[in-house]
């Protein structure tokens, strides 16, 4: 007979989510539901009627980890709807900003996922905050990488959190040569650190992959070889930056996207039948409590070609670079491999950037109400914003953020793993839950449908 276990809240990621797990007698997950319980933000509703300039800035406020991705996706969705083409140098500045965001976010995620891992060759778990070596110097390296990335973001974007420099039609300001040189120097320094860091992280993840067991809350749990495997597809718009409906060959297709309600996707009401007080951070939910994923989930379930898909570093590598490894560790490794790529791109962009060129389009049409979308490859995956602008005002706005795509996919990936490792699988997706929380649901005819939750 299967048992029901609930881990709520899940820890060491951004936002507020929980895991509801149906497990068999051996503790193996038969079906898992990972759902967001962060309250709905309502950015899409807030956007309607605002000026196109305002909306991306509001949208970037959904999160403080990847506001850059949301800001850029929002701005490009507006530009796509209005038909604005930006100067090349503005694009280069945006790419620098994008890379800076990716580096800092990936480095931050390392801090969150390292405590699940072991120091290679030992049975000692990594505590990133310990003053002892070798972890101490790794933590310092992570700090420095983040500092470098945030400073680069600050220079190119005006701010590293909620960037002020990107605007519709390009950027507010180009860089002074001195600032460009500073970015260049920082990227050169970062590249060396990033390469060392990538090698360290990959060694740690490979070591976990080879292990037979992991210790969770005093329990010795076998690690399956297929930890985090799923058979859903992958979706990515670009290896690094993004795509929009203005592109000659758009790499994302709104016609293939559909969204369904959590009501149709998640499990129904059930009672928690088992609890483990020794599980880390306060134990699992006590026996007898009720869980109702259908009603509690605060996200829609977006489908691409009728299926949930995975987005993120592995999806990018899988779609564009032929990376074919599966599972949670493969995901972590893919993430680590993106560090040097991003630094190389920053250096490349610095080389190409002309500091005295204009960074704002000469002509900015005000929009005729046609649909525009932009897919930005945020650190956590493909972040699609869709919008309609007419006469400078936003008529319709929607955000399809990475973790929203990953919720149902990760729920599928939980099956077959010991329940104690469910959080490890979840962390492989680098979840960023708060921005994922949206309740704009459309039916097959693309009409907004009344939602069960909002009744």
């Amino acid at each position, binding site marked *: 007979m299967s048992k029901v276990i609930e881990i709520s809240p899940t820890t060491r990621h951004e936002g507020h989510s929980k895991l509801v797990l149906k497990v068999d007698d051996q503790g193996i997950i038969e079906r898992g539901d990972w759902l967001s319980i962060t309250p709905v933000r309502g950015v899409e509703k807030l956007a309607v009627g605002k000026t196109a300039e305002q909306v991306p800035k509001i949208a970037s406020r959904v999160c403080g980890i990847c506001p850059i991705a949301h800001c850029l996706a929002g701005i490009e969705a507006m530009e796509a709807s209005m038909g604005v083409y930006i100067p090349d140098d503005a694009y280069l500045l945006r790419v620098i900003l994008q890379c800076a965001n990716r580096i800092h976010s990936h480095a931050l995620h390392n801090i969150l996922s390292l405590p699940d891992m072991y120091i290679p060759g030992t049975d000692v778990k990594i505590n990133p905050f310990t003053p002892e070596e070798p972890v101490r110097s790794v933590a310092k390296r992570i700090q420095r990488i983040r500092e470098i990335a945030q400073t680069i973001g*600050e*220079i190119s974007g005006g*701010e590293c959190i909620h960037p002020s*420099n990107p605007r519709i039609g390009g950027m507010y*300001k*180009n860089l*002074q040569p*001195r*600032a460009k040189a*500073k970015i260049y120097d920082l990227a050169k320094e970062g590249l060396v650190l990033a390469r060392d860091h990538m090698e360290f992280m990959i060694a740690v993840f490979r070591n976990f992959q080879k292990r037979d067991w992991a210790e969770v809350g005093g329990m010795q749990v076998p690690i399956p070889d297929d930890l985090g495997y799923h058979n859903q597809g992958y979706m990515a718009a670009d290896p690094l930056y993004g795509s929009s409906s203005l592109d000659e060959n758009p790499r994302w297709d709104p016609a293939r996207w559909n969204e369904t309600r959590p009501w149709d996707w998640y499990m129904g009401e059930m009672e928690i039948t088992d609890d483990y007080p020794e599980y880390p951070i306060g134990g699992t939910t006590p026996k007898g409590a009720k869980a109702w994923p259908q009603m509690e989930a605060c996200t829609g379930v977006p489908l691409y070609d009728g299926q949930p898909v995975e987005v993120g570093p592995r999806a990018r590598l899988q779609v564009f670079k032929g990376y074919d490894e599966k599972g949670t560790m493969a995901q972590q490794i893919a993430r680590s491999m993106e560090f040097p790529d991003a630094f190389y791109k920053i250096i490349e962009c610095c080389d190409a950037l002309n500091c005295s060129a204009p960074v704002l389009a000469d002509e900015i049409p005000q929009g005729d109400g046609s649909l525009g979308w932009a897919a930005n490859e945020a650190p956590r995956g493909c972040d699609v914003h869709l919008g309609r602008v007419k006469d400078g005002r936003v008529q319709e706005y929607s955000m399809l953020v990475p973790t929203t795509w990953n919720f149902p996919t990760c729920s599928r990936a939980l099956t077959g793993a010991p329940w104690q490792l469910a959080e490890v699988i979840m962390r492989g997706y680098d979840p960023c839950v708060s921005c994922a929380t949206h309740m704009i649901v459309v039916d097959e005819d693309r009409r907004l449908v009344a939602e069960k939750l909002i009744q």
Partner: protein
Amino acid sequence: MVQDNFLGNYSSCVAARSTNRAILAGSQDGGIVTQLFAFALEEGIIDGAIVAGPGDEPWRPRPMVATSVAELYAARGTKYNISPNVSFIKEATRSYGLDRVGIVGTPCQMQAVRKGQLYPVGLRDVPDKIALAIGIFCMENFPYQSIVQLVEDHANTKLENVTKLDIGKGKFWVYTERGAVVQLPLKITHKYEQPGCHVCLDYVANLADISTGSVGTPDGWSTVFVRSKKGTDIWSKAMAAGCFETKPIEEVKPGIELVTKLATEKITKNRKTIEERSSFGVGKGLRNPYI
């Protein structure tokens, strides 16, 4: 360290002028600000300075990030109207890529800089990058429109022809290219002042690292208050490098007594304005900006 109710805290006060003739040629008085920034730039104490550079219209300053001595020279002289220097303080650390910023400003701007350092709302990563803040004495400031009115209507001079504006000896002076000098009594200029200046309780930039102004010293010289540890450090280095010629403030006329007198006048007068404002209007007064 001297502690004075009106002149603030300072470690030393001297009369000084730059030893560089090129700086003195275009400076308002002793060329203190230009010389200090030029020295700090050359020594690598600052990467650049936010100064009131030339704007689009004559005598209308625009904040400018000067990263070379030549750019500093372009910003010499007092313009007597508002240059929102603090608005550049974040941009200087962003698209200009500066790590050590120098800034010059009026007492209110120094207050803003220090407040920004204490509560960096909207100034992320800026506080630790302010390497040198130089304050200038200020009785009150004028909007640009006032300067246009004063120079073009009261002094009957086209602004383009003006070579220097000055306030001293109880008058507003307009020097023109062709040698004419117009003086307006300050009685005339009062109504053109910024009303916001009338609640200011700071005359000699008490919060700056170093503050300077013409009052208290003969023509061509400036009074300099060295205030903070940072200011003392930079000032002594500049002195050692021979940047300035100085005299003890006690030996010059009119001396620090005049500075104290004017500071007392300004602050007493403005305290009264603040008091008046507190019962201004019906039922509720205007807020005291200092509490």
